[in-house]
């Protein structure tokens, strides 16, 4: 797989609906200013005028995060089923697959970042709002288990509205499954870096995504328990301007750092080097 080639092809036209319209120029979703698509691409989909971080597809995210040609997808054969026979779910999932170009709301696999091995998961908001159903939960649980087996750190980029309504209770249980898997990996000594991107809310923010040894977030991302859909007036009194954002969560101690997109790769590499160093010492003690 070549995420680099994937990235440039897809960003030209296939998946623009969440970010920028097709064409030469488009409007920034943050400041409404006209920006050149080429410039936006060069700037990793961050507006050079206001710094707004437009959403990325999982392929785009992988392309700017992992070493070229290092990504090997795992569990790509898992597809959604319909445990509740929920009205319209099958159609909705197949439409989502067609429009997003991914088969489910998370892509997982092995990769290296600046030469450092890790297991990585990248959510794709374009597939049913990044919602966590059985497939997302299972892929995440398997990713944690794979990190335990390989004794490497795990990095997960989240972007999700929460549990997938169409899978009902089965989706709700993925919160417990992924949280338990995160805890199991933690007990086995696996470092977990959780990266919150726009948006990370509901049952994803309230499960594995909040359990990182280190929790990073992109600037300005919507991050909170309730999604923005819940009326602000219902949420009690005077709300701060940064309510339900990365910055609010960092201010209240639930996010370690907000990291601009262009610094994310270096930040991850720093942490992976830190964790790898401690692993090397353990290896020596074991005589391995």
């Amino acid at each position, binding site marked *: 797989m070549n995420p680099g080639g994937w990235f440039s092809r897809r960003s030209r036209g296939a998946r623009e609906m969440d970010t920028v319209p097709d064409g030469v120029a488009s409007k920034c979703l943050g400041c409404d200013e006209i920006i050149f698509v080429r410039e936006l691409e060069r700037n990793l989909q961050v507006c050079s005028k206001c710094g707004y971080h437009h959403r990325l597809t999982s392929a785009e995210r992988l392309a700017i995060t992992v070493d070229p040609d290092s990504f090997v997808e795992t569990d790509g054969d898992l597809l959604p089923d319909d445990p509740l026979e929920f009205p319209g779910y099958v159609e909705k999932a197949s439409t989502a697959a067609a429009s997003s170009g991914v088969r489910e709301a998370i892509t997982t696999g092995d990769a290296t970042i600046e030469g450092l091995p890790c297991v990585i998961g990248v959510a794709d908001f374009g597939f049913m709002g990044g919602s966590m159903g059985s497939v997302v939960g299972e892929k995440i649980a398997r990713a944690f288990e794979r990190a335990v087996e390989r004794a490497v750190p795990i990095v997960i980029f989240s972007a999700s509205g929460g549990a997938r309504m169409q899978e009902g209770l089965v989706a709700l249980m*993925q919160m417990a499954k992924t949280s338990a898997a995160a805890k*199991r990996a933690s007990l086995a000594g696996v470092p977990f870096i959780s990266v919150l991107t726009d948006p990370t809310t509901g049952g994803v923010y309230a499960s594995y995504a909040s359990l990182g040894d280190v929790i990073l977030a992109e600037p300005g991302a919507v991050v909170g328990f309730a999604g923005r859909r819940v009326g602000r007036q219902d949420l009690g009194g005077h709300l701060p301007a940064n309510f339900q954002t990365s910055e609010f*969560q960092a201010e209240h101690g*639930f996010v370690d750092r907000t990291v601009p997109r262009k610094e994310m790769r270096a930040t991850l590499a720093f942490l992976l080097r830190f964790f790898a160093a401690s692993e090397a010492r353990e290896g020596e003690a074991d005589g391995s």
Partner: protein
Amino acid sequence: MFANLSPWEEVLIARHKDRPYALDYVRMIFDQYMELSGDRVWANDEAVIGGPAFLDGRPVVVIGQQKGRDLRERQRRNFGCARGPGFRKALRLARLAERFGRPLISFVDTSAAAADLRAEETGVSEAIARNMAEFAFLRTPIVAIVIGEGGSGGAMGMAVGDRVLMLEHAVFSVIPPEGCAAILWRDKEQAPQAATALKLTAKSAQHLGIVEHVLPEPLGGAHRDPSAMAASIKLSITAVLEELGRMSLDDLVAARYARYRRMGVWRTEPPSERAAEKPS
């Protein structure tokens, strides 16, 4: 007529104003109970109650989500919608149970966790996540009983256990039917249809393998005969604890992890070469 209620009618019974709440059952089921307070970090969230109790002379730790009966109590308890400190209080009491080898009994009854400013400030999401992770590996038996509303993440913050029981007319759902209807049909009035689609009844939860036992309710619902309901819950808790008590703690925790690990329904189909190369 109560044998064949629609899912929406189940929702209405689960939310009935006279339905027994956690503390009602605690008083009827346990010989003695002492309420403890606070999360030892920030506050005492009264949407969550808990403390040491005796079940037929046997020491246990009880936690529960508590709605209020009258308006003043409802406000004090935030209608049973816990914030960060409520879930941390539950975790603190769960740790107490673990440390002294007491089984943990959790009464689940919340429409949802709070999502207001104070909930976000006190990290309600982190608290729910932490509870699920910690409960999954807690080295003592855990029995959770959904007595009314098992509302989404708010329920999950206190519903991870070795056995999950559910009262016949309780509901357990990923989203309230009103919210689901608003998303699906942009119309909250269609909540009854959404309740059907969500398969949120006790029978469905058991069918999906999410709960082990459904406890029949007195005719018309638990509020028609609370003491009979309490007696039935007590019998079930006692039986389940006896069963769990026969397992070693290692086996217990391994089985609990497996209980959640196997949850999920999917199909498999290898990615075709074409699809892998041309994702668009």
